[in-house]
């Protein structure tokens, strides 16, 4: 019998903890498919810091370290220095990566640590119940910006890919989305490219994935996808921000 669709081996056979309609699950699957297809499950060490994906150690089948809020790139650095030939990746939310962990991500990129970062940007703090994130949009209503994010008070949303692509150590940076089948395919290709970048020892790679948080955005899953397209994409344009993977 021909198997047309199955659970990637790198994903554990458990029910995950994400809310219905949350795109974290799709992103997990893409990471697992890439790892399966590259045949590197046994050589992969993941890092799941604080955020909705903090329990990702239950959802992936390879070795994994849970890390403190924002510190995943430092933890990844420690692991990678010990095992330079293993695949090391972090899976970080926007609060984690772009607020509390800003220093760690910038310096991991600057050192061109040969790691891969999967950066899940849902423009909100999911796990703690919907507070403003560094990537929340101007005007966006959250628990801590009940009147909408105001530039005078909370400043501007950070564009991580644009910022990090100015760092010399960054080898490959791309922003993708998982709002449609077509974009999911592109997202997978980007994740694959980032892992290949690491395999070929080209240095720091990061894929930012625009993601939804229906629960804290207060939207139905399909409305959430629509909101992502209408509001996030204009501010966070998809595309490749730097690619030195062909350089020696």
């Amino acid at each position, binding site marked *: 019998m021909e198997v047309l669709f199955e659970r990637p081996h790198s994903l554990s056979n458990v029910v995950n903890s994400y809310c219905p309609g949350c795109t974290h699950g799709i992103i997990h699957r893409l990471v697992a498919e890439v790892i399966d297809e590259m045949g590197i*499950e*046994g*050589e*992969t*060490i993941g*890092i799941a810091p604080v955020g909705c994906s*903090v*329990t990702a*150690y239950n959802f*992936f*089948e*390879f*070795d*994994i*370290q*849970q*890390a*403190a809020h924002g*510190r995943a790139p*430092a*933890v*990844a*650095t*420690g*692991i*990678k*220095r*010990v*095992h330079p030939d*293993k*695949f090391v990746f972090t899976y970080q939310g926007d609060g984690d990566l772009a607020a509390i962990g800003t*220093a*760690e991500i*910038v*310096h991991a990129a600057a050192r061109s640590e040969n790691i891969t970062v999967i950066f899940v940007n849902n423009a909100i703090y999911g796990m703690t119940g919907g507070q403003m994130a560094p990537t929340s949009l101007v005007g966006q209503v959250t628990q801590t910006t009940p009147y909408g994010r105001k530039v005078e008070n909370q400043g501007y949303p950070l564009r991580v890919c644009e910022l990090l692509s100015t760092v010399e150590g960054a080898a490959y940076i791309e922003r993708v989305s998982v709002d449609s089948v077509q974009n999911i395919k592109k997202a997978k290709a980007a994740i694959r490219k980032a892992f290949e970048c690491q395999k070929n020892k080209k240095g720091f790679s990061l894929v930012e994935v625009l993601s939804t948080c229906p629960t804290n955005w207060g939207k139905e899953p399909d409305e959430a996808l629509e909101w992502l397209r209408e509001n996030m994409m204009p501010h966070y344009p998809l595309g490749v921000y730097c690619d030195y993977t062909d350089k020696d």
Partner: protein
Amino acid sequence: MAKKFLMKGNEALAEAAMRNGCRFFFGYPITPQTELAAYMAKKMPKIGGTFLQAESEVAAINMVYGAAGAGARVMTSSSSPGISLKSEGISYIAAADLPCVIVNIVRGGPGLGGIQAAQSDYFQATKGGGHGDYRLLVYAPASIQELVDLTAKAFEKADEYRNPAMIMGDGMLGQMMEPVEFSEPIDLSSLPEKEWATTGTEMKRKKNIINSLYLSPEELEYLNIKRYEKYAVIKEKEPMYEEVYTEDAELIVTAYGTVSRVALSAINILREEGYKVGLIRPITLWPFPEKIFDERSKTAKKFLSVELSMGQMVEDVERCTKGRSEVHFFGRSGGMVPGKEDIVEEIKRIY
């Protein structure tokens, strides 16, 4: 006889760490531990190890977390303000049961404080520092040879108990020079394998997880209880101390680290004059050598805790002497160090 080297404390510590299998060092510059990192930076590449200057102490301790979880012998060093920043990471390391060695070359505090020798991080080292129920093994050497020997021990015990170990010194110990002997470098392949480490499954075993998150209170409490069972074994087996003239002592001075040497000079002067004074020098600050205090408090009438702080270890001395003896405190802080005459005078005053 092994060869003797004349070395600064900070450098001797670094050399001892490398000889005992430390191949990864992550740090951030701060006085007065600078020579330790500089020595590592010079020597690590020559033995195939990694020295990395991190962007902060926060990053450095999390690199230690990653490397320890990946199975390596790893160390970081800092001084008081830097240890405060590392404290979050130390709590996670303790909670994930990871072995590593943390060096604190203590300076005067609080705040940015000063850069001279102090012992005002005793509470931080022995009672927490970071959040949650956890303990570090804390070693407090008083000479450079002891610093070297305790560095070996710290790595060994950290691995044995899967627990972070701290070496507490101060700027005097870090910067003074004394002759030292080193043991031969250990063979890394002789170290027991860490089957729990995240090294990649190679598809040969189930996944390993390094974690400190337990959302079920039952599970978290169970793990805390298990960890306290480990701490109970450590408290039974690992306390270290030195005693001098305590058998007939009516007054026992307690002091650790460099200031214990000053205290001992004072005691020698007083012994010549006929005073019955002795010294207990804790070598492990946690586990605190409780039993000897219990024992000696049955005969000594008075204890005097001499510290480079406003009075921290004295609380453990009070606790362990159980109200049987009078407990006094004499200390200087902010980087001030008492002379032996000062200690002599204080002992005479309360004797």
